[in-house]
Structures are given as C-alpha cells and as structure tokens.
C-alpha cells in the first residue's frame, strides 16, 4: 500500500476524459487484507485504478427483549457501563468492533470494515448476549452509515470548486479545512480536501461508490496544475523509477532540470544527481 502513494503522481496527468471513463467497477472484498477495498478499473488503461477504502460501517439491530445492563456490566468481559447515558459499550476482537447496547434491546455496532463484517459482528454480539441468558432474537439488522475514503492523485483548488457549486458545496475555512459536498439523491456527504483526499459517508457501500463516481469529474476540473506538485514528491518518484528501471509513460511530471531524453544510465550530471548505483559511496 505504501507504494501507491508514491506512484500516485505518475497517474496525475490524466485527462478528464480518462477519469470520467472509470465505469467498470468491481467490489472486491479481499479476505486476506483487513480493509475492504473497491478497485475501480478503467477498461481502457490497465494501470490506472482509484482505490476506495471503506473505513467504518455502522449498523444497528435489535434483540427484541429487555436487557439488564447492570448484570452484563458485572459479569461480562470487555464492557464499559456509562450510567449517565444508560449505555453499555462492549468490544470484540475479531472483527474489531464496538457495540453500544441500550437496555431496550437496541444495539449499534461500529468499527466494522465491510458490510459482511458488520453482520458477522452483530451476530457475535447477539450470541454473547444470548449466552448471558437473555431471550435474544436477531432482528431488524440494517446498515446505518458507511464511511469511505479515497485519495485523488492531484491536489484540488477548493476555493474555486466551492465557488462554482454553491448549492451543494459549503466551504467554511474557519470551521473545517475541507469542502462539504452534499448529494441529496444518494444521501451522501463528501468532504473534499485541498490535498486531494476525499471522505464519503453514505447509507451503503454502493452509494459511496456512486458518490465518488459522480464527484470525480467535477473535481478534476479544478485540478491544481503540474507545477503545484511539490518537488519532493517528484524527486521521490524519479528515484523509485530508476530503481525499478522503469521508463515512465509520461514525461510531464519531471522537475525542470531533469533531462528526459537521456538514458538513465548515461554519465551526465543528471545521473550524478540521481546516482545510487554501487559506485556511489553514500548509499
């Protein structure tokens, strides 16, 4: 995963049209990784993908019976009972989730990384409560909120973006450093930051995906120009490429003094600057 942040500027000089073509989507719930990710693959260009990470799925269900919170607090493990709000917090390790339990039998589960995980966790909590002896019936399970994050490979001019989309976007620099963009039809709230990160909260994973699909072409219009990518990132990227001996597809990312026509292993001042071959003493 760490490699992706460095490779990101590579895909930065995408044209708006290419980004808009991201349509073929596959929801890949990989069991080996902790996070559920959605990879959007552009059918035309196999190297471009925008990863959407689902960070939190909040769900709620009911056990349809009254719970004696005090008893659970005394006898249960990994529980916290807050008397002033009348709520009990219970945590389980796998999947790493927290449940807020009310004495009426309503339970809210937070911290799950995918929709399936949320259901599994909910059932585990119900099982724990069942073992206490309560007459538990698993009912009314529904996903309340899904939080997804995504990192665009370019920085965004949020001032102009918020100026254009006045009805939907709200930017208050004193209150929050990002633009809050609300999509009523999808019931999604997106927060777009000037670094290019986007966080989305929506009622379901599909809504998250659609919201990002909807917003990316709008945001790509306000991409900050090439010169705004910091020199540090560009140099890091050039080093990485040299290590992997990859000829990059695009030349525009290079800093001003980088002579693109030269071969990588030619002996000019350029390779002196970037030399970390064996002849260099520093490395």
């Amino acid at each position, binding site marked *: 995963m760490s490699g992706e942040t460095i490779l990101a500027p590579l895909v930065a000089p995408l044209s708006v049209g290419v980004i808009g073509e991201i349509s073929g989507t596959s929801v890949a719930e990989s069991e080996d990784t902790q996070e559920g990710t959605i990879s959007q693959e552009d059918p035309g260009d196999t190297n471009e993908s925008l990863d959407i990470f689902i960070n939190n799925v909040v769900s709620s269900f009911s056990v349809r019976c009254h719970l004696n919170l005090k008893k659970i607090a005394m006898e249960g493990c990994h529980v916290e009972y807050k008397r002033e709000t009348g709520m009990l917090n219970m945590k389980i390790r796998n999947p790493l989730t927290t449940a807020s339990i009310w004495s009426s039998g309503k339970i809210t589960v937070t911290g799950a990384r995918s929709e399936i995980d949320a259901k599994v966790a909910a059932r585990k909590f119900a099982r724990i409560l069942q073992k206490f002896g309560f007459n538990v019936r698993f009912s009314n399970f529904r996903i309340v909120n899904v939080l997804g994050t995504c990192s665009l490979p370019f920085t965004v*001019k949020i*001032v102009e973006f918020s*100026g254009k989309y006045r009805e939907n976007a709200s*930017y208050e620099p004193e209150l929050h450093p990002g633009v809050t963009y609300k999509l009523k039809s999808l019931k999604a709230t997106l927060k777009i*930051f000037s670094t290019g990160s986007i966080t989305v909260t929506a009622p379901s994973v599909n809504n998250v995906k659609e919201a990002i699909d909807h917003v990316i072409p709008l945001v790509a219009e306000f991409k900050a120009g090439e010169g705004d990518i910091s020199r540090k990132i560009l140099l890091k990227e050039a080093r990485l490429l040299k290590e992997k001996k990859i000829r990059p597809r695009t030349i525009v990312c290079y800093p001003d003094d980088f002579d693109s026509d030269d071969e990588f292993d030619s002996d000019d001042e350029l390779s002196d600057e970037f030399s970390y071959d064996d002849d260099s003493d520093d490395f």
Partner: protein
Amino acid sequence: MASTNRRPPMVCCPEHPDSPLVEDYHAGDMICPDCGLVVGDRVVDVGTEWRTFSNEKDTKDPSRVGAAENPLLDGSDLSTMIETGPNLATDEFGKPVYRNRRTMNSADRSLLNAFREINQMGDRLNLPKMIADRASTLFKQVQESKSLKGRSNDAVCAACMYIACRQEGVPRTLKEICAVSKISKKEIGRVFKLILKTLETNVELITTGDFMSRFCSNLGLSTRIQKAATHIARKAVDMYLVPGRSPISVAAAAIYMASQASNEKKTQKEIGDVAGVAEVTIRQAYKLMYPKALDLFPKDFKFDTPIEQLPTQ
C-alpha cells in the same frame, strides 16, 4: 419622498414648473428639488410636539402619542399604559380599579430579549446600528420559520450577528463573535449552517483582505505596512502557496512578514493575540510563504530589514 399630487392650483417652482415638489414634514414646507426654493409653507407638521431630553429632572413625558413603533420586528407593541396614582380610580381597598395590562405576547418577549442581546453584542464589537438591525431582521426571519426552535436563543443571536457582519461585507471572525457571546464556537458554527439552510441564503467566502485593516490598526501598524501585508496575503493565495489554510492564518502570517521587514516589528505572539490565531499556526503558514518572499512583497516596498535577514520561521 416625492409628492404625488400635482394639482394645477398648487404652487410650483417658478423656474422648474415640471419638477415634483418635495414635502418636508417637520418644517411644513414644499421644496423644489432642483433649486431648493421653498414654495409653500405652513403645511401641518407631524413631527414631535416637544423635545424631550433624557436628563430632565421632570420625568413627565409631555408627548401624547408614545414611542415610535418598532417597525418590521415587532407586531403589536403599543406603549400605551394606564396611569395609576393616588387620586385616580380606586375601589374600597385602595386597589386601582383599572389594571395596567402589561402582559405582552411571550413570543414578542423572547424577540425583545433577543434584540436587546444583539444590540449589546453590537456595542461590544463596536458595530454600527445598521448591522445590529440586519441581525435582528435575520433573527425574526429565523423565529418565524420555527425550524431552529430547540436551539438556545443566544446561539441564534450570535449566529445572526455573524451572518449580518458577513453580508454587510465586514466579516468578523468566529472567535471575535465568541468573545462577546457566551456560546461556544462549535455551537455557533452549527447554528450558522442551520440558519443558512433555513433561510436559503449564501454568504461570500472570507478573504484575507477583509481583516487587514482591523488587525493592523489593533497592532498599531502604519498604513504602508498594512498595504504591504494585504498585497502579500493576496499574492500568497493566488500563487497557491498556502492551500487549505484558513484566510485568517494567512493574513496573520502576511502581517508578520510585512512587519518583520519594516521597522515596526511585531512578534508572532502579539499578532496571534490580535487575530485569535495560535502562534504555531502563524509559524506554519509563514514557513510556506517564506521561500517565495521576494515575489510576495509589493514592488515599491521599502525594506528596513532586507529579505535575506527575514526570520526563517
């Protein structure tokens, strides 16, 4: 207000026979607006009968019609009251026969309270009456819509004041509004967003230039430095050196840069106190702006400390 009746027998100005005459109610005159000639007088006067001064020992108010009506804001506020005194109508027990009906609508009472609060806030912020009036109008609109019913009145007052300042083009930072109100910044921010949604209005984005004159005069900096700081802040935002930074932090950093380059140096702490920005925030924004200091200063700026000797943080 132009007079609408122009009957031929009425007098008209000898030099401008076509111009409508303006009535001056207080002096009872008809005046030609083009040359100022008074062409008719002794029209009935509807102004106040007697002048009342607040320091008169004789507290009896000789006015026979009561206070002016509070327009728009209230509805049925009549200031007529029944007088009670020793030799007026009393029944057997010495109690007055006719009670003074002082009960007003409870809605009006909360409105009046809110208006008083808004006026007090305006006084503390040294704002002109016009902005306080606009804030009061906004409050009345919010009250009518009933959508923010559960929110504390003080929070709504503070948020209305904030919006009014913004709408008039003289924004006050949320921290400044916090300083004159007892509501937290978070709550004011929440109510502010709710009010914008209810009234379906938008406010302009704050810019660095809105705060320059206030911060600089609070710090005692001359206009030369203020102009330089304004220029620096605007260029920094245009050149996209400080993406994602609040305009107030950028303004504070620009003031720091301009003051350090002149002979009226101000520390980051002083600027932070005046602007309501933390010292480290000014430092962060300054670090982003310092590399391009040469481009940021205006062309004709006279440096008392050359750019090379500007502090690096």
